[in-house]
């Protein structure tokens, strides 16, 4: 059978892209299963879903980051089945992706960045005259009024985003993929960028846009495809179907809460930990506040959740509380057991009974060169030392004890932590912080990237810690996890705590609403 694009098939709204039953597996995880995506030429097509739903993976498949052969299914682009072997191949076809983390080189100029890897050259010698002329023209098209010789590091994130788009246009882009383009931008820069994307639509450039900011999508997208757990849920026609934020949220979180949590009867005591007016600046950009007047309380025996989308400032809040490990402290108090405590560094945070299990265990949580026993005791060596000398027998005994109680699956505590699975590594990190005898544990994405069985065990550990009268703060991107595990949930949006809900009164929709807009905006509606 020969399929050719005919005038009949592409009558009124020609399809530029069709991804058919895309399945992509990573060792142990099925990131995408049977995903379908149809994009019409000249539209702005949004892709929505919770963190980990598979949006970025799908776009990486499309743009050749994951080459043909590493996934199953077909990509039909402009009527042809495409087999991209790398990004260069997809760019050659006119598909350009702009990643969430901008791929610009800060120490090079705007011109040099626009033409990086694509330099106008004759026999290997770059024609800078030509490059600069074209750069000026491209900058005019994206509405960026900057000298093309300016270094990237000297312009703001918003303008950098425009340079990325200029770079894409220099490659004769037909299909532009934007992965959370406005995540790092302020209101006016976002506005400008969205206008530009709509302008590109007028020039016949199709855009696929991943975003968490639902109001933006509602405003500019023509269609929205919702992914959940690596599957396509539905594709909505924004105008035709009369889609609003609530409709999108329902699609995003629609699953029921299965019994994925151990039985637990909370035994909640009085407030023992309180944060007031916590304000922190971004470490590099002083005018950007990553935490704004945040205030919250934790009771003994309570599991408190923090819900917020990526970049909302959850981790920043946690790390800045934990010995000022992030950003620049501006103001705020930490009150524990009725007394204000000072925690200018991690050592004092640990002394005051705080523990922070980081979001990224491989980068922030573990020394991957170490073995299990050394990792287990690493946050409180004094506890197994006489004077300055580590008692290795006791170290071994302590590690053994946690290996048994947390069921860390390993032949021996002498084994290197790098050899453990994600779930077991996370248990080692938990053991490391339980060993410090904390009163307050902050767990940042404690179940990220680990399988269902290990998740269940970790939930059990968290509940046990609460039963012992400790306060536990859980930061998670998975709303069902927060709803199933926590007693009370705070929502964060753009550095501010926007809402506080008892978990039994909350549902995914109400959480998502507070996570995607500030309270002020909500009340003004």
């Amino acid at each position, binding site marked *: 059978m020969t399929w050719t694009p005919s005038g009949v098939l592409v009558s009124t709204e020609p399809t530029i892209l069709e991804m058919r039953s895309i399945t992509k597996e990573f060792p142990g995880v099925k990131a995408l299963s049977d995903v379908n995506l149809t994009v019409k030429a000249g539209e702005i097509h949004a892709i929505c879903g919770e963190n980990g739903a598979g949006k970025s993976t799908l776009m990486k498949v499309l743009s050749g980051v994951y080459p043909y052969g590493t996934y199953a299914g077909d990509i039909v682009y402009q009527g042809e089945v495409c087999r991209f072997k790398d990004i260069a191949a997809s760019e050659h076809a006119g598909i350009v992706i702009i990643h969430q983390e901008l791929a610009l080189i800060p120490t090079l100029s705007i011109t040099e960045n626009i033409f990086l890897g694509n330099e106008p050259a004759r026999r290997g010698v770059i024609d800078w005259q030509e490059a600069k002329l074209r750069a000026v023209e491209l900058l005019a098209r994206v509405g960026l009024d900057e000298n093309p010789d300016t270094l990237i590091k000297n312009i703001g994130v918003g303008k950098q985003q425009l340079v990325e788009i200029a770079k894409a246009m220099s490659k004769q882009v037909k299909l532009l993929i934007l992965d959370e383009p406005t995540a790092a931008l302020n209101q006016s820069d976002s506005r400008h960028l969205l206008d530009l994307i709509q302008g590109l639509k007028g020039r016949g450039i199709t855009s696929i846009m991943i975003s968490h900011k639902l109001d933006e999508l509602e405003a500019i997208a023509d269609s929205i495809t919702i992914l959940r757990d690596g599957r396509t849920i539905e594709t909505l026609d924004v105008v035709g179907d009369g889609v609003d934020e609530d409709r999108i949220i329902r699609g995003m979180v629609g699953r029921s809460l299965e019994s994925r949590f*151990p*039985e*637990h*009867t909370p035994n909640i005591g009085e407030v023992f930990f309180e944060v007031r007016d916590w304000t922190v600046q971004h470490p590099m950009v002083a005018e950007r506040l990553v935490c704004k007047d945040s205030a919250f309380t934790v009771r003994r025996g309570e599991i408190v959740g923090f819900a917020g989308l990526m970049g909302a400032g959850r981790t920043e809040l946690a790390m800045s509380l*934990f*010995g000022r*490990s992030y950003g620049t402290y501006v103001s705020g108090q930490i009150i524990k057991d009725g007394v204000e405590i000072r925690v200018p*560094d*991690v*050592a004092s*945070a*640990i002394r005051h009974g705080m523990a*922070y299990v*980081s979001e990224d265990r491989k*980068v*922030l*949580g*573990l*020394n*991957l*060169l*170490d*073995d299990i026993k*050394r990792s287990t005791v*690493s*946050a*409180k*060596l*004094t506890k197994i*030392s006489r004077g*300055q*000398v*580590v008692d*290795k*027998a006791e170290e*071994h*005994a302590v590690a*053994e004890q946690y290996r048994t109680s947390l*069921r860390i*699956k*390993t*032949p*021996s505590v*002498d084994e*290197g932590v790098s050899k453990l699975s994600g779930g077991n590594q996370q248990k080692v990190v938990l053991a*490391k912080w339980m060993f410090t005898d904390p009163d307050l544990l902050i767990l940042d994405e404690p179940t990220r990237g680990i399988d*269902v*069985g*290990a998740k*269940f*065990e970790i939930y*059990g*550990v968290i*509940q*046990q810690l609460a*039963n012992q009268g400790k306060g536990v703060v859980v930061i998670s991107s998975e709303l069902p996890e927060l709803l199933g595990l926590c007693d009370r949930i705070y929502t964060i949006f753009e550095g501010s705590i926007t809402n506080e809900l008892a978990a039994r009164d909350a549902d995914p929709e109400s959480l998502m609403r507070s996570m995607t807009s500030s309270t002020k905006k909500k009340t003004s509606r």
Partner: protein
Amino acid sequence: MTTRISDLKKMFGGGASTGRQFGMIFTLVGIILLFQVLTDGLTLDPINLIALVSQYSYILILAIGMLMVIILGNIDLSVGSVAAVAGIVVAKAMATFDLSWPLAIVLGLLLGAAIGAWQGFWVAYVGVPAFIVTLGGLLLFRGMNQFIGNAQTIPVPAEFRVIGSGYLPEIGPDTGYNNLTLLLGLLVAIALAFREVRMRRTQRAMGSDMAPTWVSAVKVTLLIAVVVYASMLFAGGRVGTSFPVSGIILLVLVVVYSFLTNNTIFGRHVYAVGGNALAARLSGVKNKHVHFLVMMNMSILASLAGMIFVARSAASGPQDGLNWELDAIAACFIGGAAVAGGVGTVTGAMVGGLVMAVLNNGLQLMGVGADKVQMIKGLVLLLAVAVDVYNKSQGRPSLTGMLTRRFQRVPEVEPTPVPAAETSRPTS
């Protein structure tokens, strides 16, 4: 006997770099035997051996400090110049101001501490890369040596020379050997046996995977045989010579620093910062303090090495300590340290340093010119690290891992899988 390879490996202690050390010790023994044959027995001749120790002790002392710097992922290029400055200051203090030799040594160590504090300040608190700080130090302190000494040679008094060219004295009955050296050998042998017994007792208490008794027995017997043989050699040299005082200083430092790196909180912190600085910081380690102290320690050891060298050559001169940093760095990397930091042991660095020393010495005994010796040393360094890098990229632990892989059994310990969801339900 296929199952015994892993037991045999336990002879050489535990830890991540065991495989590498195991390989290095065999390389060292191999090189010694090779040169013993090639030089018609000159290599293991007492006179040569004594000279070898006294000639390389100060490089090995530097390698101890350098190892800790390298574990942090840094490099110290200034050690040769620091050694030279300490040498000239101490020599001048004794020559011009009649400072007594014990005070002079204290002065030298304090000077080392001050220089180390200076360099540590820039590295730890200002954040200038150690490579740059110590490259600056290399020039600064070399110049300072020549400035203070007027680019001239200053002799040191005889009492001071003991730390560089002294030997254990001859006392007791005439046995044909140096009695104190024999006694030292005996003490070391007893200490080794004691250590093994203690280690086994701890292992039993911890219930950890233990080597069979025969392995321990063979290991201790072998080690004691080596120690006894070595002490006979050192004790049997020309009358008046024996185990050098500088060698004793080195031995003491090796013991102290092995303990420091393996058994103390500070040692743990050094490995933690080198292995993952971010994780270390979030575990409450004061990374800056660690960087500062390690840089400071390096300069103290450098100045000690400088004083020993001055004592050995009877005078301090403008060219002292030239290129020492390179030998010390090479020793660490041959001994299994990683450029990226986090990995390395004092013993490994000592073995690496000895490989270079024996190689150097053996080639010289064979009459190979200094030009060719340098070329060979360069290639050996490259090869040793290349083999290590290649093996890591292949997912194999080390050279030895590669050699013994064929004989290894499949790992027999497989944890009993626990049906996770069922068993961890809290009882509440």
